[in-house]
């Protein structure tokens, strides 16, 4: 196996970094922690790129498809001979792609944080957490079986919790980290039940065996999972829906999206890494992994499609009203992930080319670059201005030229303007939508227009609009904050030209996609229209936004309050769950269970008070006991035995 010599280093180097920095970082490595961590990630990135090169070009196609190579498979917990939790390392097109994405973006974030987090007291701890996250995410993408992915899923959740709550002295950060963890944990309950159904019906936990068994219509597993049902729906649908719920929680799909905007309390490089490029796409990755199973069930596919579509539109509307720049980017992420989800959903229906799958993965790939560029640019701005709100910004283009230029590239990319990366991936998604479902296509088109609008609203509010006078500023940032932006900017321009369908497809066979000029005109027109409207509103300082938002009145207010979803959840938990279930349980716990335990202790105490008189300290008492004992023993031995 050509890979086995170095492939394990890719996830294990960050793990080593976590252990070393976590245990010894504060005392010994406080200033050099960043350099060590970045070095580890550089090595990991180089190895992933090398592995990708090996996989796609040197080994390449066998029989017109890319092989699934299991580099490493270790039987860890064996329950029965069929169901065992293995720890393995699999290489197939999407996992290799994710390896490249995760290591590369993580490396860029490590580099950026050298400048952004400089002078932090818990510098080494920050890098330790970043390394832990990178390890968990890498473990997630290389999993060979569904339980391994669940374990790393939870680990990723923990790392996210640690990183969001990094500024733990702020109560809002603590609340946000708790919210993220609890919402995703709640979704993971669904995921676990889905796993259990699959394990029980498919009689295995390995991805390849499970897929092979269930896609074979004659196999006993397929027959049992489709014949058994619950509440009128087959078990297969239930399992797929529950697994999708887990994915939706992690990917912030409606209605489990409430944690993502609050998660912006963490440091901005963390948002770039976790909540833009890697963790939030874990749900999409999961659906892509189980894609052959999703193709079997139309109901599950429809759920995936419509949830993704609704999230995309919903988030885009809210993003138009937010004033905190990181919140705008968070909703933008949610919207783009919605795109990836519905692209997967509509892909399964057409038998032939599964264009949607490739388009979704391509959009995941490009989105990682330009979204993390957007977040890092926002981080540079926040570092400069020391505030997150749009009203404190404006006219920054003369203070921060490099940030301005790269931010502009990213905004053009996300709006879908050629020749930047986002145009190609979005165009493929829209093409796939057009080919299968016209309603989805229409909504997606409108959403892309809204996307262009709010992104350029953001861009103009930061860099143009009004002139702010800033004295005593410390410059744009050190080289380690500018270089990542430049690298990502270059990538955002170039990655669009990768012929993705030559690498990643649903069934491993490659196909050619072509560039349909006539088809692409419509999305470009919508995007340009959005940009023009944004320019008119926000290029110069004026009262149009205020006047028009008052005209929309109630709708604007509802959108600004994020459609009151948070308030709804709070109402359900506080009024209903706490009062109906929480308080009675607490009462029972305190008065029944605790009283029982305390009561038994009290009885023991009383009993011991009575008995302790036996040890009176007087020798004659002891002699009496001794004497009576001897006589009794004598009687017992002589007469009774």
């Amino acid at each position, binding site marked *: 196996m050509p890979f086995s010599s170095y492939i394990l280093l890719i996830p294990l180097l960050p793990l080593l970094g976590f252990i070393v920095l976590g245990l010894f970082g504060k005392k010994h490595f406080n200033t050099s922690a960043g350099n060590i961590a970045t070095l580890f990630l550089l090595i990991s990135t180089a190895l992933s790129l090398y592995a990708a090169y090996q996989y796609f070009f040197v080994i390449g196609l066998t029989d017109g498809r890319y092989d699934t190579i299991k580099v490493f498979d270790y039987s860890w917990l064996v329950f029965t001979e069929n169901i065992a939790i293995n720890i393995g390392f699999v290489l197939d097109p999407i996992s290799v792609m994710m390896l490249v994405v995760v290591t590369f973006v993580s490396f860029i974030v490590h580099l950026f944080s050298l400048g952004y987090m400089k002078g932090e007291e818990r510098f080494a701890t920050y890098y330790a957490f970043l390394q832990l996250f990178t390890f968990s995410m890498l473990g997630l993408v290389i999993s060979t079986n569904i339980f391994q992915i669940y374990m790393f899923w939870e680990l990723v959740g923990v790392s996210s919790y640690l990183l969001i709550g990094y500024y733990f002295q702020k109560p809002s950060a603590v609340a946000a980290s708790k919210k993220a963890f609890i919402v995703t944990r709640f979704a993971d309950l669904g995921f676990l039940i889905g796993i259990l159904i699959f394990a029980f019906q498919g009689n295995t936990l390995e991805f390849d065996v499970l897929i092979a068994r269930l896609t074979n219509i004659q196999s006993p597993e397929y027959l049992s999972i489709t014949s058994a049902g619950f509440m009128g729906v087959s078990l297969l649908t239930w399992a797929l829906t529950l697994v999708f719920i887990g994915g939706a929680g992690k990917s912030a799909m409606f209605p489990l999206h409430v944690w993502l905007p609050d998660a912006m309390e963490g440091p901005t490089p963390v948002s770039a890494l976790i909540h833009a490029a890697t963790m939030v796409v874990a749900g999409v990755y999961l659906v892509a992994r189980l894609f052959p199973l999703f193709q079997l069930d139309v109901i599950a596919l429809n759920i995936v499609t419509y949830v993704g579509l609704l999230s995309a539109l919903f988030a885009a509307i809210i993003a138009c009203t937010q004033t905190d720049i990181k919140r705008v980017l968070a909703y933008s992420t949610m919207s783009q992930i919605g795109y990836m989800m519905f692209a997967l959903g509509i892909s399964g229906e057409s038998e032939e080319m599964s264009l949607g799958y490739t388009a979704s993965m391509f959009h995941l790939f490009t989105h990682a670059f330009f979204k993390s560029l957007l977040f890092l640019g926002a981080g540079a701005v926040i570092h400069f201005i020391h505030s997150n709100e749009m009203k404190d910004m404006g006219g920054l283009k003369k203070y921060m030229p490099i940030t301005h230029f790269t931010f502009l590239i990213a905004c053009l990319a996300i709006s879908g303007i050629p020749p930047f990366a986002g145009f190609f991936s979005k165009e493929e998604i829209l093409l796939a939508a057009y080919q299968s479902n016209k309603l989805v296509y229409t909504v997606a088109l409108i959403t892309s227009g809204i996307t262009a609008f709010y992104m350029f609203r953001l861009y103009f509010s930061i860099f143009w609009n009004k002139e702010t006078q800033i004295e005593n500023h410390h410059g744009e940032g050190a080289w380690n904050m500018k270089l990542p932006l430049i690298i990502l900017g270059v990538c955002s321009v170039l990655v669009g030209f990768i012929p993705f369908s030559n690498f990643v497809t649903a069934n491993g066979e490659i196909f050619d996609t072509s560039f349909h000029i006539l088809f692409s005109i419509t999305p470009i027109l919508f995007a340009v229209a959005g940009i023009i409207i944004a320019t008119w509103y926000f290029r110069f300082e004026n009262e149009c936004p205020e006047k028009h938002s008052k005209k929309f009145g109630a709708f604007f207010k509802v959108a600004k309050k994020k459609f009151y979803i948070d308030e709804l959840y709070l109402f359900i938990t506080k009024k209903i769950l706490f009062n109906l279930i929480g308080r009675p349980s607490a009462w029972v716990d305190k008065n029944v269970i605790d009283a029982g335990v305390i009561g038994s202790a009290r009885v023991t105490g009383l009993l011991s008070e009575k008995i302790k008189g036996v040890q009176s300290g007087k020798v*004659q008492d002891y002699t*009496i006991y001794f*004497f009576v004992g001897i*006589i009794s023993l*004598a*009687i017992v031995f*002589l007469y009774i035995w």
Partner: protein
Amino acid sequence: MSASVIIFYCISALILTAGVVAVTARKIFRAAIGLLFSLIGIAALFFWMDVNFLAAVQIVVYVGGIVVLIIFSIFLTDQSGSELPKPILKRQIFSILSVVFAIAFVCNLINRTSFYHSKDIFDTSVKRIGNAMLDTNSVGYALPFEVVSILLLAAMIGSIVIAMKSKNTKQEKLK
């Protein structure tokens, strides 16, 4: 009813009565005298049983040594004056009951055992005792004899050490 039988019963009565006096007397000297007479009675019993040497040893050591020692200790601990306190009633009743029960139990046991009396002559002359005491063969008692002498030495040293007045108390008393 030969004379020896009557003598035996008299001696037994003496032993037991004196014993009861020793354990129930309210004044301590009466208890000591009770003990004294009980020990003399036991020596008489030994004489009656034809072990003259042991009887002599009993009188010399027990009566002449231990009882005197006890009387000295009564003086040393200032007990000679007042009456002894009464024992706790609960304990007294419990002890009497258990002792009576135990006596009945053991006497029952003794009754049921059939002892075989041997017809040999019982020779306990001092010459024989002396020879056996210092004999070093397997039925000789030379080793226990030596060990007991070491024990007596240890007891002597031990009681001196325990009963010795420590230096601080001596100085306190001098002040």
